[in-house]
């Protein structure tokens, strides 16, 4: 069965420091990978996705993610965190070539302190 794991419930970072939010996946086919962010009492906002091609994907608000097939990972990164980046982050995967659902991880709460 396909699944997505976000191993950290919470990540704490100081403003200005680099941040990483981890995501690993387990699928039987080619994965399509997505990152979303959720601010309090809001819906999910799309950040970036990997479909094919360059393993480094750049997205909104200065975020980027690297697809690593051998490690089955798709970690979200940002070189310099902002307090306004504090939110809940979700990784999701869909399987190519099938009518599979979008499978979400459980989410990681990012807290950026001044």
């Amino acid at each position, binding site marked *: 069965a396909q699944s997505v794991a976000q191993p950290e419930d919470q990540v704490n970072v100081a403003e200005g420091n680099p941040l990483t939010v981890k995501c690993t996946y387990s699928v039987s086919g080619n994965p*399509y990978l997505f990152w979303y962010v959720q601010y309090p009492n809001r819906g999910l906002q*799309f950040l970036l996705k990997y479909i094919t091609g360059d393993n480094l994907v750049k997205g909104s608000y200065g975020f980027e993610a690297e697809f690593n097939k051998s490690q089955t990972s798709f970690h979200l990164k940002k070189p310099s965190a902002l307090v306004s980046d504090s939110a809940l982050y*979700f990784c999701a995967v869909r399987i190519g*070539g099938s*009518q599979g*659902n979008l499978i979400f991880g459980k989410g990681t709460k990012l807290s950026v302190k001044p």
Partner: protein
Amino acid sequence: DAGITQSPRHKVTETGTPVTLRCHQTENHRYMYWYRQDPGHGLRLIHYSYGVKDTDKGEVSDGYSVSRSKTEDFLLTLESATSSQTSVYFCAISDGWETDTQYFGPGTRLTVL
């Protein structure tokens, strides 16, 4: 929120009563989805639609039904609400299937007492 509205935004109801949540889009996207969000579970797909009157079940469809009579509207019905259906419900839309991004509405917070 990508031209997606959900109504109501908040609802409190009692066990055993029927509840209908509405998702309305102005993007003319083909695909529409209903998810529920619960702490520790992320988002889980309830039902989805791939066209007018074309729907299918998701991961957690028991106790829920859907209808789509127009491209722009996707209704989620709880025939007889239970406390386990207390959750935040999100609607999403996409123009394609596999590689296309899903865009989410603002959510409906449902409490079943």
